[in-house]
């Protein structure tokens, strides 16, 4: 069987799900953040494969934007996590419960 769109999409879906699983299960903010990057990347993969099989370039442009935005997001996010760590000496999600109910 030839490798086609379905295969790539399957990988992309699995990647997305793995990322999701990471977000849900891991407790370290940084790891969660990495999992989020995984999810974004899965979208990239999907876009690129669609782009390839639909013969349209717009998807790749979108990927370009996604990568840029992701980079910006990571920068802000990491700065935030660092600031938080300085305050709390922890990057654990469970320690972030000063506001609830």
């Amino acid at each position, binding site marked *: 069987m030839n490798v086609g769109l379905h295969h790539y*999409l399957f990988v992309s879906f699995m990647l*997305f799900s793995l*990322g999701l699983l990471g*977000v849900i299960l891991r407790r370290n*903010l940084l790891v*969660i*953040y990495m999992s*989020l990057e995984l*999810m*974004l990347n*899965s*979208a990239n993969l*999907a*876009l690129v*494969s*669609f782009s390839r099989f*639909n013969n*349209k370039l*717009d*998807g790749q*442009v*979108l990927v370009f*934007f*996604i990568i840029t*935005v992701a980079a*910006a*997001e990571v920068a*802000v*996010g990491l700065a*935030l*996590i660092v*600031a*938080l760590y300085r*305050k*709390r000496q922890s990057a654990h999600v469970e320690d*972030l419960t*000063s*506001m*609830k109910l």
Partner: protein
Amino acid sequence: MNSSLIMLEISVIGLGLVLMLADLFVPAERRRFIGYAAIVALGVLLVTSLSGNGSCGQFDTAFGGMFVNDALSLFFKQLFIVAAILVLFMAAEFSDKLAEGSVAEYYSLILFALAGMLFAASSNDFTMLFVSIELITITFYVLVSFQRGKIQSLEAGVKYLILGALSSAFMVFGIALIWGTTGELNFTRLAAVAPQFADSQIFLLGVLLVLVGLGFKIAAFPFQIWAPDVYQGAPTPTTAFLAIGSKAAGFVLLLRVLFTAVPGVTAHWANLLIVISAITILYGNLCAIPQRNLKRLLGYSSIAHAGYLLLGVAALSASGQSALMYYLAGYVFTVMAAFFVITLVMRHLATEDISGLAGLNQRSPLLAATLTLAMVSLAGIPPLAGFFGKFLLLKAVIEAAQTSHNHGYYCLAFTALAGVIISLYYYFGVIRAIYWSKSPEDVSPIVLSSPAKFSIGACLAGMLWIGVFPNTVLNLTNLAAAALGK
């Protein structure tokens, strides 16, 4: 290429840059005036955009149909600018709580977020949708965690960051699927091809994932979970802007996606929207009942209001959309008024608990009256804005029930009704705390600066004006809704 269409956005971004630079040259003790300068500039922009000859007034598309100026975008842009002006006023009052060196940045970030919202209002393409939403969201990450000295602010920032990024991931994936199936990113062109894919699972999946992202922005069930924490932790002006700007941006995009891009799909989702709207209303209102923290209370209440606003979406009609926008217009002034009072009270008392409101009418009758009226308007009681807005929304829903013979709409109307009644309980709780809880020993008066008085007055006037003379706004929203249907 009608790049002149984006003059407004360019001006706002430029203004943001100027403010940031101005910071370098203005002495520290006068930085407050940077904000006032920004307000004046925005006021000018508002007037020009209102005039009809300004960039917003030209109804056209640009950038290959990616950017569209129509009555809808015009309405929302005006709404965003008004909101931003009021937030800047609030920020000026709040500035002593911010790190001293970063006041100007705070203003300029507000302007950048505003730019994102303005772009969102004109988005007619998923790329635009994505980047404008990201611009708003990332700016808000910073705005939410702006009080670095306060753990709650940072915590709120992180929560918003993670969940925001999560929702972005879903949305991006959804966009990928939509584009992958249809090959179109442009809303208008998508609408033309979408009918072919109406039963394509993967296409529907894509649309749903986009809705997840937008649902997050407007804090609709089941993506409402972040709202209370973030509202509570964020600096109050940010909260206010989040409650209005971010939410409204979510709604304008939701309207565009549902009614411009995939109207055929939306038509089948009446029940989905009904359920989401109903649960959102109930969730927000029910959770708010035992709430004692004012900002958190407003967080829950904003969830409930997202639900009310969704009534207009669920109605799937022009009158529903028009009602939604009308409601938003009233909501701007109401929520701003509420947060303004909270800002000032908190600055004075350093508490966010409702009990802190005790004796407020002795401290400052104006603030007490303003908060009361805001609560009354949120509860939907005449003659303030909230009443007529709810009236229009209910009307739209019942109209939908009658035209579509879907009894779910009646259930929705009754749920909304139940929500309104539940909400009376906690809104009146706030009023009660102001007027008839035991006054504390010390009832030192809260002194208001004249800009604060001015902006509170403006909020009150807006609330009353929209409630008592609905014609002007209603005509605008009707036009906007008509533009959406085209």
